[in-house]
């Protein structure tokens, strides 16, 4: 009985000790008393007698810390000379302390016995004590504001003491009163100088908004979004991520059946102007015809269509891509110069801009800008944000007086003096940065043009006499109206707009059709309530014209719009009537609520409508997610946004945008571009973020990825994967991979792959290149080139150049359309969809022979292929899931039991378990010593820090032999995966190694070709999936 009690008491003490140690962790050594000594300290100030008995107890506690850690300093010895202080409690704690340690470190006890010093120096001892006393006094003298309450022992505390001083014991009231007054004063000083009402007053609010916009750009719809969306700060913008309402499915339905609206104004526009020949010549270096569209594509060049392509660094195709862009040529004007808009993602913009400047040989020569004073905020360069140093701060302070209460339109973060125009002296090309100058709204869904048709009305043509009355800037429209050819153009454009309701879905007209338009103020004919625009078949009159429109799209001449003209854009932005003015005019209407007719005063806004093709590739769900983009001059954002919303468009954020691209089967920038600098950056950031999140969970509440055989659950190790497959290929083991033999793996292969892994990792992280290693790589590539037979694939850039010139990782993505088509047919099972397949396997199609496969492999050793996987049965893959080759047994299993869930990965052993345990116990020891030893013990530091990188459940080293880590050979990883609402089953998009894919396909029987396995990072279950390469 006694004994049991003792144990309990001991454990209690032990716990207390631990707690105390935790409190003392970050204390400097000479202050051993802090919070726990406070009560004593406080009372000693009050002259309480208890304090004298208290303090020795506490000091004894600290001593035990030191003893248990096996580390003795002088002071312990000192205290051990005061046997009178030791009560029963201390002895108990002594024992308890040892008991806790006995299991793990018995040796410590012995060392403790041995280490008791024989003598102590009095001076040293006294000095140490003096320091302690000093610290103690200091702590007593400096009281924090809430201390007077905490100084009372718990038994004497009463409810609401801080509220009513009279509840305190009388002796403390004086002090407490002073304290309370002090706190009140502090609070008063800190509080906002203005009342809420004052803060919300328009001017002040605007000032506040302007201040907040200096760091991250706000879109014009920011306030609207901020009220309804989860906002995130990304790429220097404040963007709506997803609606706060639960509307995942509603947004999907809007996309596929109604209309979803998205603000894409954050995408950056770069304008290039120059002669057509010069432009094409310089830009031709950035892209290749092999990958599909180029800037010179006929339909795009006329300005009739919008094109999209992936840009590469100059002359570097197929390695070193920059990222995907869309581009738009201005239709030919009488002048010789052509204008080209390149729309890019903000993460890509700086890379693109520097590359363009390089290619065009543009210098930082500011062109005299015709911009009026109002557009002080034209553009921004991201570099500005990356250096949030003094410079901007100063400028902010200075700028505060100059532009105090003007609404920021466009980019608020840019330095007004920054150059946004660059001219080339040799070719005469002018590059202009139009970020935030033109807004872009995207409407997705079959009803999008109904919404558009109802919201937009073509501007009324002015008679000559009417135009005359106008003054100054407003008259761009009357000037425009004076020319008859403009009027016929305008009428034509209006005619096309009127045809739109006759079309049931935007997918029915040619992809990328551009329609220029000048519309009236959309705020004037708003419905009172939110309505849903529906197609009205009765309005359709001219069936023949609609048919013509569907077949040939809009003529190139109708793509002309004045939005291309910078002056017109500025005028339109400046002369916009504010909401307030409009409302004032409305209030003066004779019949309240009737339509306000401004007549010639109504603003005319030039816009561009661009059709966005939906799902183009593949056979299924063609045309899904098609819609329209509206390009608007800046300043008019909300004026267009609200009318669109009022016509039944549902707003979506970044998340919906990502889903849209995912269901379309397209790679999403920057997530799915692991070969672009922006993509690499993005993956590193996400990994860091995810690891942080992972670490927040206790080890038992998070998956142990080592057990699951997942080396990199938070990123995809493309580099290692590709290298592994390349090595595998060179070993010549291109037979069917029996998974079990592969498990054992040749040792030399492991070694070599590790070597390469190391090299490239280093190169990615810090762009330093050890010369020796580079030589090795070159040898490597040479061996490849000698292997390469002379086959007639003209698109094959020789791989040696590809090898040498990629510091940012050796991975490239296959974008050659011809090759993709070829592989796409190879991946299809021959028996199903006979007709479709036969069409592609034409006379010119290369049959899948060993030679053809080998040729491709040799010429493209480090390439990845974009694939779509649809799961056959259950399961929804997630990001970073592995794509594996099914073994022969798996295929048999599938054939015999079509309903089986799929094979299982055996649970992996955790080779780091012991390491982890060891480091943990080390840490513990170091930690328990801390309060005593942290004084100046520098030697101890490495012991504590060695276990820092080790996160339980995560592979600590660089991943090695990624390909063969699991029982099935890995060929790739999933970058986006989810349950697809369009298809109705799990669907994944990702990359596979080209070599691995061909290896898989060539070893599979013809009717089961293209079957793969997918496994989520936190699961052992493989699922069957069908690989599709959609071209």
């Amino acid at each position, binding site marked *: 009985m006694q004994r049991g009690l003792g144990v309990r008491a001991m454990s209690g003490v032990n716990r207390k000790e631990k707690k105390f140690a935790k409190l003392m962790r970050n204390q400097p050594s000479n202050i051993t008393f802090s919070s726990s000594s406070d009560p004593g300290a406080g009372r000693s100030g009050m002259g309480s007698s208890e304090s004298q008995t208290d303090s020795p107890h506490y000091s004894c506690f600290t001593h035990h810390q030191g003893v248990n850690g096996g580390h003795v300093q002088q002071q312990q010895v000192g205290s051990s000379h005061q046997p009178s202080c030791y009560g029963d409690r201390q002895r108990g704690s002594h024992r308890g302390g040892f008991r806790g340690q006995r299991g793990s470190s018995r040796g410590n006890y012995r060392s403790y016995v041995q280490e008791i010093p024989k003598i102590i120096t009095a001076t040293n001892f006294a000095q140490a004590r003096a320091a302690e006393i000093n610290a103690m006094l200091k702590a007593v003298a400096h009281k924090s504001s809430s201390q007077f309450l905490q100084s009372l022992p718990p038994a004497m505390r009463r409810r609401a003491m801080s509220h009513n001083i009279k509840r305190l014991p009388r002796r403390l009231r004086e002090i407490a009163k002073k304290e309370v007054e002090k706190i009140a004063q502090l609070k008063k000083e800190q509080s906002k100088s203005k009342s809420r009402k004052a803060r919300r007053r328009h001017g002040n609010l605007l000032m506040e908004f302007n201040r907040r916009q200096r760091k991250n750009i706000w879109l014009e719809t920011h306030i609207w979004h901020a009220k309804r969306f989860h906002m995130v700060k990304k790429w220097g913008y404040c963007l709506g991520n997803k609606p706060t309402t639960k509307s995942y499915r509603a947004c999907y339905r809007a996309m596929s059946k109604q209309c979803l609206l998205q603000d894409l104004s954050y995408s950056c526009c770069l304008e290039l102007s120059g002669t057509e020949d010069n432009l094409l010549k310089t830009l031709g270096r950035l892209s290749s015809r092999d990958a599909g569209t180029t800037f010179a594509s*006929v339909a795009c060049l006329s300005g009739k269509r919008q094109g999209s392509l992936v840009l590469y660094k100059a002359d570097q195709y197929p390695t070193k891509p920059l990222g995907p862009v869309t581009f738009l040529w201005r239709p030919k004007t009488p002048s010789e110069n052509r204008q080209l808009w390149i729309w890019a993602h903000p993460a890509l913009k700086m890379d693109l801009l520097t590359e363009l400047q390089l290619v065009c040989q543009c210098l930082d020569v500011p062109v005299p800008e015709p911009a009026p004073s109002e557009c002080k905020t034209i553009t921004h360069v991201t570099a500005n944000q990356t250096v949030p140093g003094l410079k901007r701060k100063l400028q902010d302070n200075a700028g505060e007086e100059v532009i105090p209460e003007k609404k920021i339109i466009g980019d608020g973060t840019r330095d007004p003096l920054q150059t946004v125009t660059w001219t080339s002296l040799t070719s005469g090309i002018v590059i202009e940065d139009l970020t935030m100058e033109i807004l872009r709204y995207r409407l997705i869904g079959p009803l999008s043009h109904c919404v558009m048709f109802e919201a937009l009305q073509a501007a009324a043509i002015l008679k000559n006499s009417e135009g005359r009355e106008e003054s100054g800037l407003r008259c761009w429209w009357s000037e425009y109206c004076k020319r008859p050819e403009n009027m016929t153009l305008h009428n034509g454009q209006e005619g096309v707009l009127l045809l739109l309701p006759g079309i049931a879905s935007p997918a029915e007209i040619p992809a990328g059709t551009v329609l220029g338009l000048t519309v009236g103020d959309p705020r004037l004919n708003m419905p009172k309530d939110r309505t849903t625009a529906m197609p009205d*078949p009765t309005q359709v009159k001219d069936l023949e014209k609609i048919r013509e429109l569907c077949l040939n799209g809009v003529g190139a001449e109708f793509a002309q719009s004045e939005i291309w003209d910078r002056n017109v854009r500025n005028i339109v932005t400046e002369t916009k009537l504010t909401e307030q003015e409009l409302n004032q005019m409305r209030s003066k209407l004779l019949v309240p609520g009737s339509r306000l007719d401004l007549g010639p005063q109504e603003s005319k806004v030039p816009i561009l409508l661009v059709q966005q093709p939906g799902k183009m590739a593949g056979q299924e769900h*063609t045309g899904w997610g098609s819609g329209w983009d509206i390009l608007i001059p800046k300043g008019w954002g909300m004026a267009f946004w609200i009318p669109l919303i009022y016509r039944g468009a549902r707003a979506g954020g970044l998340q919906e945008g990502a889903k849209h691209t995912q269901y379309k089967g397209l790679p999403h920038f920057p997530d799915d571009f692991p070969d672009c600098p922006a993509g690499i950056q993005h993956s590193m950031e996400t990994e860091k973020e995810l690891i942080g999140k992972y670490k927040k969970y206790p080890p038992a509440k998070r998956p142990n990825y080592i057990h699951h055989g997942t080396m990199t659950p938070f990123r995809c190790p493309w580099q290692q994967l590709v290298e592994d497959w390349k090595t595998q290929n060179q070993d010549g083991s291109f037979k069917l991979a029996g998974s079990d033999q592969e498990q054992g793996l040749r040792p030399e292969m492991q070694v070599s792959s590790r070597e390469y892994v190391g090299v490239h990792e280093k190169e990615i992280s810090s762009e330093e290149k050890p010369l020796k290693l580079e030589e090795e790589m070159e040898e490597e590539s040479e061996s490849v080139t000698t292997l390469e037979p002379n086959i007639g694939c003209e698109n094959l850039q020789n791989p040696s150049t590809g090898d040498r010139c990629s510091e940012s990782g050796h991975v490239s993505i296959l974008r050659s359309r011809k090759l993709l088509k070829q592989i796409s047919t190879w991946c299809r099972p021959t028996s199903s969809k006979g007709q479709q397949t036969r069409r592609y396997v034409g006379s010119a199609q290369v049959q899948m022979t060993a030679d053809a496969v080998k040729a491709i492999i040799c010429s493209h050793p480090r390439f990845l292929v974009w694939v779509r996987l649809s799961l056959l049965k259950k399961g929804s893959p997630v990001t970073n899931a592995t794509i594996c080759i099914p073994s022969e047994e798996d295929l048999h299993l599938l054939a015999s039991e079509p309903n089986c869930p799929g094979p299982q990965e055996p649970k992996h052993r955790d080779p780091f378990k012991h390491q982890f345990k060891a480091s943990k116990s080390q840490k513990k020891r170091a930690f328990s010593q801390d309060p005593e030893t942290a004084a100046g013990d520098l030697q101890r530091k490495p012991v504590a820090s060695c276990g820092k990188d080790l996160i339980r459940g995560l592979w600590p080293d660089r991943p090695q032999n990624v390909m063969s880590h699991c029982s099935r050979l890995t060929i790739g990883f999933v970058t986006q995966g989810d349950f697809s609402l369009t298809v109705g089953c799990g669907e994944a998009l990702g990359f596979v190694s080209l070599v691995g894919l061909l290896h898989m396909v060539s070893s599979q029987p013809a009717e089961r070709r293209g079957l793969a396995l997918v496994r989520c990072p936190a699961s052992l279950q493989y699922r069957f999936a069908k690989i599709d390469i959609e071209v």
Partner: protein
Amino acid sequence: MSMAENQALAPASEGALDMDQVEYTLRKRLPRKLPKRKNDIYVNMKTDFKAQLARCQKMLDGGCFSEICIHGLGLAINRAINIALQLQGGSFGALQIAANTSTVELVDDLELDEGEPLTRTRNNSAIHIKVFHTLPK
């Protein structure tokens, strides 16, 4: 509802445009969508036959509609006829059918590697079957 009629497109008669197979990519556009009433059912080849049949049956039994219209395009014509006949057969003479055929113009895009993309039109047959109660309810 499921409007994937495009699945049912039979391949057009090749040879209307005799081009080298590699030179272009063929992309079919969606067939023109027509305004749809509540009792229109577009049959496709992707949804399970039984499910489509059950859907039609439910509509007729529900009492909301005295007639429904089943549309099939191309490959799905067979299936549309099949569904209509099944409905009629299972109704013990309470249902009657009336069929109409038509031609639908479809548009294909030919994406050439060089030059302007072409469009071509081709025709495909479609069927519209009206299934109605003989005795008006």
